[in-house]
């Protein structure tokens, strides 16, 4: 406990790093996954290809990715961009399928009615399909965010692990308090971020809760 109090500044900077390294990739990954998911959902046969290719990305071991990315991107081996890119790749891997599934679950009647009212495809996507997909996509984003927060720690092998530095540092210098504090902070950060995303979801989708309340009333 003393160790924690004496190193608050160090911990705070690691925490900031951790938040940036874990959440920026989630945002980037989401921005990439939405059009890919849309494409996958539109292209009958292509769907399997896109979704499975994206899924394959997730099977690449993170350590390997951290090591190979500098070669591919031309970045230095000790560049935080490697971590951001690697985790963005994982987010894309997780979210492409989610987005495709979410779009597929939009009631066809709603899409049909929107088309018949005179929406062109892009505007219809923005006005109807995407917002209706938010509850499912957001569930995926929560998984991706928590997974990203945990994966950042692996980055500590190349020196950019955020709170993960506390594991390596604590092990090397046999400071148990540091390791424990690191684990606790990662878990707490994951819980807080998950809670915030849940809250954002509720604010974005008051209609979804209204529908759930009705459905519960009907079955009760």
């Amino acid at each position: 406990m003393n160790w924690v109090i004496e190193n608050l500044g160090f911990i705070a900077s690691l925490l900031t790093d951790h938040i940036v390294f874990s959440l920026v990739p989630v945002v980037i990954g989401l921005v990439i996954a939405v059009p890919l998911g849309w494409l996958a959902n539109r292209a009958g046969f292509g769907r399997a290809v896109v979704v499975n290719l994206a899924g394959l990305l997730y099977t690449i071991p993170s350590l390997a990715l951290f090591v190979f990315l500098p070669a591919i991107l031309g970045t230095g081996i000790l560049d935080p961009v490697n971590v951001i890119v690697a985790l963005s790749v994982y987010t894309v891997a997780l979210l492409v399928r989610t987005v495709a599934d979410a779009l597929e679950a939009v009631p066809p009647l709603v899409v049909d009615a929107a088309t018949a009212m005179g929406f062109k495809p892009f505007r219809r996507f923005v006005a109807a399909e995407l917002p209706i997909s938010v509850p499912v996509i957001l569930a995926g984003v929560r998984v991706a965010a928590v997974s990203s927060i945990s994966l950042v720690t692996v980055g500590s092998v190349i020196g950019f692990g955020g709170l993960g530095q506390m594991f390596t540092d604590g092990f090397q210098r046999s400071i148990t308090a540091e390791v424990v504090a690191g684990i606790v902070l990662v878990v707490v950060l994951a819980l807080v971020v998950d809670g915030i995303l849940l809250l954002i979801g509720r604010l974005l989708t008051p209609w979804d809760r209204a529908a759930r309340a009705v459905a519960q009333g009907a079955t009760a």
Partner: protein
Amino acid sequence: MIEFRGVTKRFPDGTVAVDDLDLVVESGRITVFVGPSGCGKTTSLRMINRMIEPTGGTISVEGKDIMSRDAAELRRGIGYVIQQAGLFPHRTILDNIATVPLLLGWNKKQARERAAELMDTVGLAAEMAKRYPAQLSGGQQQRVGVARALAADPPVLLMDEPFSAVDPIVRETLQDELLRLQGELGKTIVFVTHDIDEAIKLGDKVAVFRTGGKLAQYDEPGVLLSRPADDFVDSFVGRDRGYRGLGFLSSDGLPIGDLPVVAVGDRMPTDGWAVVVDGERRPLGWVARGTGTVSEDALVPGGSLYDAGAGSLRAALDAALSSPSGRGVAVDGDGRVLGSIGADDVLRGLADSREADGVPGADTVRGADVTDRVG
């Protein structure tokens, strides 16, 4: 006016959904496309706003070939109502209705004002404006669907089995509402249904399609009932068509007979049946011959009422057949008892009307039919 000229729809797999369709949908009227599943009625409807593109022939709306216009723009000018409404689940009722005005570039305030106005038009309470579709009943959602289709005041309204997913009682209310609305708005409505009764009730003209996308008959509903073009239409129109056809014959000139009338507290009739009325001369029920005074307990519920001013021969006959005394109760527009009507009078009236013009259905009334009941 919507005109189909030699319109064919052949799907890539070779199925012919609509085969060489020639048909003119008149402006300001309700035209119903009806037929069994796979007859091409929905395909025909969806070709009008290019949700499905024809593979042959031309369709024109108000004289303009639909293929010459941008599909999305064409659609914004044509109202569309579908089964289960297809509302946006993530938008409030008000914003759902405002959809097309917003697409047309109205500002938000204007669009919402228009939407609020339409909620009133279709009979939705103002407090529903902020609710989401899932919080409404099926019938209410369907009203929203109609309001949404009307929002930009399009001259043409396409309705694809709009009432088939609601229960029969709600369906009947929605049908009556549609007729009331149409009386005010006079839109060119194309309505698809598989329910011949709905077609006959709503249609100014009815197009009966047969499997394979062929038009079997296109006529006014009264004609459809009295003179089906062939065996297919005959069997599709279904049972009791003779009786149902009476709904399209005016009862003008039917003789109204005497009817003994008593009030609660009066002496019981000494002979036969009498109708018990309230202070306004509205019927409460029947009493049969008896002793003592008329009490509410002794009332026998009556049958349907026949509105002598507006009713059809069907309403007159049903009043007679459903009455415990064998004589139907004829009332005026305010529901006050005028006299009685007998089944034999109706049959005589039918014979007269046949003799007069030989064309049943030429002198039609809107099938108001059996509504109020006595007692």
